């Protein structure tokens, strides 16, 4: 584990900032922009890497809680998508892969319910998806805040606080 990941990322940032970027031909604007992006990515990775597993568990736990209590009902498409979702929710694999699998199955259920879901179920599903997306988009904005795209940074959480306890 030694040298650790933080040290190696910091070393790469310093090399880029102190050696590589100053050496780039000022007329080579593409190379200058790419070098700046590499530094940006490295700084974001430095903030995120050690929290990635915990963050994925937080997202997964919220999604699982969102789906609890939903009772899919409808025609063949809805029933098949619901069965796929139940399978995706079965424990297993890493948190990030599991979260993405459940997201994918939930997405399919939304599309299937649009075809032949019972109205009451569709309403409940849409309400749940919107509520989850409200929370998740805030989390994801916080997770990527350092990229600087957010117009409202005061709304965001620190990555350190994006834990299971702050998920809901």
């Amino acid at each position: 584990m030694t040298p650790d990941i933080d040290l190696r990322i910091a070393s790469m940032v310093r090399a880029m900032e102190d050696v590589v970027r100053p050496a780039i031909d000022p007329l080579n604007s593409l190379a200058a922009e790419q070098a700046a992006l590499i530094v940006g990515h490295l700084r974001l990775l430095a903030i995120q890497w050690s929290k990635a597993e915990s963050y994925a568990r937080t997202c997964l736990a919220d999604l699982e809680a969102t789906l609890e209590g939903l009772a899919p009902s409808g025609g063949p498409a809805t029933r098949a998508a619901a069965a796929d979702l139940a399978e995706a929710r079965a424990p297993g694999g890493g948190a990030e892969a599991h979260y993405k699998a459940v997201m994918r199955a939930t997405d399919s259920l939304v599309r299937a319910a649009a075809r032949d879901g019972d109205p009451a179920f569709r309403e409940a599903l849409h309400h749940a998806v919107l509520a989850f997306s409200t929370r998740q988009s805030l989390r994801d904005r916080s997770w990527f805040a350092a990229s600087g795209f957010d117009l409202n940074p005061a709304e965001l959480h620190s990555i350190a606080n994006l834990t299971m306890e702050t998920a809901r």
Partner: protein
Amino acid sequence: MILTAETTDTCVAIEPRIFAILEEKKARRLTGPYIPRSIAQVTASLESLYGPGSISGLRRMAGGASKEQFVFDHGGERLVLRMDPLEGLIETCRRREDQVLRAMHGVVPVPEVRHADIDGATFGLPALVTTFVPGVAKPPQAAASVSGLRTDFDAHWIALLAPAFIDNLVCIHGFDYRAAALPDFAMPGGDPHEMALRQVNWWGKVWADDVVDAFPIMALAECWLRENLPACTDPVLVHGDYRTGNYLFDPAGGEVTAILDWELAHVGDFHEDLAWNLQPIFANRGADGETMTSGLFRRDEFLSAYENASGRTVDPAALFFYDVLAAWKCAVIDLSSCLTAARDGNNHQDALLSWLATSAHVVLSHLTALLEKGRH
């Protein structure tokens, strides 16, 4: 209100040329990874076009998240070469871009097309050669992020650029596209909902073809869009990406010298360009902390200025639909093609694409808020 609709399993009411290029991309992406063209390779291609020793001053340009861009001199002119990589942020058609640039010449300031390599016979992949238009995309010393996002205009620059921003948009929307040579652009049919449906089908196909990770809110948005298509009784030429970052201006006097990035142009509803420009991802904070669309206008100022200059009336319901469409389209781009191009190594700016994709969650936040509002 219940949000229901069929998803995009078929390609009804999609523009034929758009459908064709999206299908071509699926085959082309398998030939990667993409190796950025060297100066020697580009020189050879240009000399095969213009003759040995006929070009000089060739160098790469920055920007262009979906094209490789070079500037060079030939025949006493400075020219720009825009070449397709295997995959980009968006998949668009050089033939349509050629047609619309020629059509808009003399209507609004645009680069002039000098050569269109539609099938890549000269450059290996489709490319356009246009005149080089001097100008800057942001004021000297002003802050800005990639692709012109978060450009910081002070009051001096706002006073110079905001009126021209409106005037040029009104000129584009007032252009008589029916009389122009735009053979690859689908014209309006008989169904007034077709303008909106074509866009949902276009970007629904992109999402279906290129999705990397699913987001249930994207499915919900697509359902809502299909259920709420507005009628369009006054189709116009839509620029498709009209915002700060996609025009150049004289850094001394502020005159707009070129409107750029016409590759998403199509015939559609004028609300589409308005809603696109109003997306929070293209906004910045003004000196008083207010949200400034494209860094130039408060929302209401922008809409009233457009109404006054165009004589059109903004329909709040249509604007709301196109607000949802614009947010969904931004998310489609950021979370599908942008990532597949980077994942597959099929672009010359993979690092930029994967960086831009991190902005998707700002867009999803806006999209979610809109859909929540649309339920009530």
